[in-house]
């Protein structure tokens, strides 16, 4: 339980109704089996910064939380005293459609703002399509560097965050970058905070570059008897001058969770390719890709558009949700390899799962070299040693290919035994120097990040 005096001070800052001490309320905010001593929901940046300042003075370990969709990421926290939720920090600070910029507070849900943007002027969007469509907040998306299939065309958060406001460990609110697309004044601090898992400061606000909604969007899905054929199409498309927005290779187990389910349960490997842009360009490219695809004898080809298309991509983005619902002790790995090694890594993961007799769902961003593997378990039981072995093998293979592995989700019990952040590299020393400089008291999320930060 939280020290009574500290809880009182918190209530003094944000009002007693925004300080949660009851066990039932705190349990929802569990991270890897650790229940915070108190949960707070500040109503303004000023309140947030006072809480952080107070927390630092009293050496409290603080973990930030947006939609809670990715709290399983990272190692088990060393300590977690306070969870600070951004629930009330969700204002649109500046929407400048003409300038193609928007500034938002961290607690804003991506789905909510995308919806609003689509109705603004001639329609805009933030070029991000990460998992957890409904729940993910911008702060969490940035802190975990979350991304989706359309990164192939648009890049990731680092490619369109123009500026940020961050609350430092000492409670100061600092501002970096701005509203302009070009900006080299000072260090590019935003880059440091993206993907930092809240270990260097609290992202309060971020300015994003907007894009106009494309005129047209279509998806081509090819069904193949094996991954090899799907990758042949991928390899034919990569060196072409076609402009794809996404290209996903999906294993049969993974595909069984896709929507609309009437089409997906065929036991095949899927290749899903998204194209967006001006109508003429989309039409021509879909036609051309169909032609290329046919050369590799697909079992079927179909074009999706409109609502069905939306349903499909959303289900792919959120694939782990139904999986975790059924198999609550699952592990999800994110493996990144050089582009040309994607096929080999895909095969390696499938082979590893087969050897150990694990149920494995596997899907990959074919044009980015990024794979996700879900090992699905109801319980770990005596399978733990085999799981550890499998992850170590995949990690070693990824490293051998000059790539990396991150365990995005795992039961807390197995985390200490696996390389959650992959193999530690020499970088670790520099990371620790930076952490030490910005959060000397190790106040923020201690122990969860790379190198034990």
């Amino acid at each position: 339980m939280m020290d009574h005096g500290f809880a009182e001070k918190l209530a003094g800052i944000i009002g007693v109704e925004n300080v949660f001490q009851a066990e039932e309320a705190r349990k929802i905010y569990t991270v890897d089996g650790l229940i915070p001593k108190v949960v707070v929901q500040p109503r303004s940046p000023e309140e947030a910064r006072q809480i952080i300042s107070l927390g630092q003075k009293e050496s409290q370990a603080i973990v930030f939380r947006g939609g809670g969709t990715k709290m399983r990421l990272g190692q088990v926290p060393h300590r977690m005293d306070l969870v600070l939720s951004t629930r009330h920090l969700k204002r649109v600070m500046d929407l400048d459609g003409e300038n193609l910029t928007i500034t938002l507070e961290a607690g804003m849900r991506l789905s909510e703002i995308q919806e609003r943007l689509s109705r603004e002027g001639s329609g805009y969007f933030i070029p991000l399509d990460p998992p957890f469509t409904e729940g993910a907040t911008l702060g969490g998306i940035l802190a975990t560097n979350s991304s989706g299939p359309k990164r192939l065309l648009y890049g990731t958060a680092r490619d369109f965050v123009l500026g940020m406001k961050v609350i430092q460990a000492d409670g100061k609110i600092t501002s970096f970058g701005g509203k302009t697309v070009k900006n080299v004044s000072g260090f590019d601090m935003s880059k440091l905070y993206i993907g930092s898992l809240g270990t260097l400061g609290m992202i309060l606000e971020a300015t994003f570059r907007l894009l106009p909604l494309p005129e047209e969007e279509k998806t081509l899905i090819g069904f193949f008897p094996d991954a090899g054929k799907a990758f042949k199409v991928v390899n034919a498309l990569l060196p072409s001058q076609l402009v794809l927005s996404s290209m996903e290779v999906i294993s049969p187990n993974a595909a069984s969770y896709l929507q609309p389910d009437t089409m997906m349960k065929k036991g095949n490997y899927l290749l899903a390719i998204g194209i967006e842009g001006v109508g003429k360009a989309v039409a021509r490219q879909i036609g051309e890709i169909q032609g290329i695809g046919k050369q590799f004898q697909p079992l079927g080809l179909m074009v999706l558009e409109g609502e069905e298309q939306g349903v499909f991509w959303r289900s792919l983005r959120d694939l782990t949700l139904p999986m975790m619902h059924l198999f609550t002790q699952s592990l999800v790995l994110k493996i990144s390899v050089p582009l040309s090694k994607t096929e080999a890594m895909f095969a390696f993961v499938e082979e590893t799962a087969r050897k150990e007799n694990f149920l494995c769902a596997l899907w990959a961003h074919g044009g980015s070299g990024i794979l996700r593997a879900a090992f699905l378990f109801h319980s770990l039981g005596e399978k733990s040693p085999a799981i550890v072995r499998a992850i170590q093998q995949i990690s070693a293979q990824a490293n051998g290919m000059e790539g990396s592995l991150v365990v995005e989700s795992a039961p807390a019990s197995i985390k200490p035994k696996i390389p959650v952040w992959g193999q530690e590299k020499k970088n670790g020393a520099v990371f620790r120097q930076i952490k030490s400089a910005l959060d000397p008291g190790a106040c923020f999320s201690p122990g969860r990040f790379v190198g034990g930060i």
Partner: protein
Amino acid sequence: MLDPRRRKKLIRDLQAIVGKDAVLHTAPHLETYGYDASLFQAKPEAVVLPQSTEEVSAVVQLTHRERIPIVARGSGTNLSGGSIPAAGGVVIHFSRMNRILEIDLPNQRAIVEPGVFNLDLQNALSPLGYLYAPDPASQKVSTLGGNLGENSGGPHCLKYGVTTNHLLGAEVVLPNGDILWTGGKALDPPGYDLIGLLVGSEGTLAIATKMILRIMRKPEAVKTLLAIFNSLYDASSTVSAIIGAGIIPATLEMMDRLIIKAVEDSIHAGYPLDAEAVLIIELDGIRDGMDELAQKIIEICRRHKVREVREATSEEERVKLWAGRKGAFGAVARLRPNYLVSDGTVPRTKLPEVLSKVIEVGKKYDLEIGNVFHAGDGNLHPLILFDARNPDELERVHRAGSEILKACAEVGGTISGEHGIGAEKIQEMSLVFSPDDMAVMKKVKKAFDPLDLVNPRKVLEDAKGGAA
């Protein structure tokens, strides 16, 4: 400056690492490597020309041990004083580390040494059907290492981004001489985004010795338009209107009358001498639908009173048109011997307002100002022309430059879009950063370089407060 005995020892120690012919220490050499494309100058103790990462590391270990400042140097085209040895010390010049180590098409990557000229990489990729997106106007001579330090852009950054969006990994030498790889050919390396932090840090945190770049397939089709306007205001309003209509061209550049004249006199690109402003607009990508997009753009230009729109109908015409834009900075030497180029960047919609402010400033200080810039991303480049031999003019130039930056900051812009803070804009940092913001950046600097030896007196005020 070091006393003669220490200096002699330094030179001997450096020679032992890189060889006698790779250490420059006579007066003409020290002068040559003590200036860049800015108005600043300083004298180093010595210049070294390493050939390998190990040599760079050994040099840095030595200077670190001896507490001697260092600055990495590419081609010295830096416009803000970033390349000059402001605190003396050793210039580490990368002219001999200029190899393209690998072009890896299946992985869409190129591995290069930092001394490679940007254009040389482009020329190596072009016959293979690939390109490296950041194409600064200085590309004929600027190096990729320098591009990393400054986070260089180029006319195509409107659509494709800047250096930080195309650098995936680097081998760096840290301030204590340690060699470190960060990032690689694969995406999303776990941990903090050191690459993102290093790009644009102006050589003050670490020194890159190898770079892994993203290369891309050339676009299928390109369409280049030249739009001729009778007013700067109409041209700059058109810029905003094109983007506002949901069209993101690959590039949107602007030149005004003064620049047009200089360019025509030197390059004869076919620009009309009586126009107040021209826009170069380029579309690229899939051919289908491009004609319609171009038509939309022409309509928007017409709505903003364009005089004429020309389309480059051959690759030759296109290259000529671009030669004019890329040679602009050099061409103004015909008009006056020196220039100060401002690098303020503003939200696109504020362009007309800020451009008229620039004209006002020119009149106020009785200075000729030419404008050639990346209108699409709001990155201005007012070229303030003068003769450095006239001290009164130089003083007015600095004040004019400062006022322009202030105007940019006031409309929600920033003081440097791509040329860096260097030594030149340290004072103006307070226009866009609070003391708390600065404190955080200083902590980061200190975490990397506690002794403040790596390119000191740049970007941030020194610890004692105030610029050098």
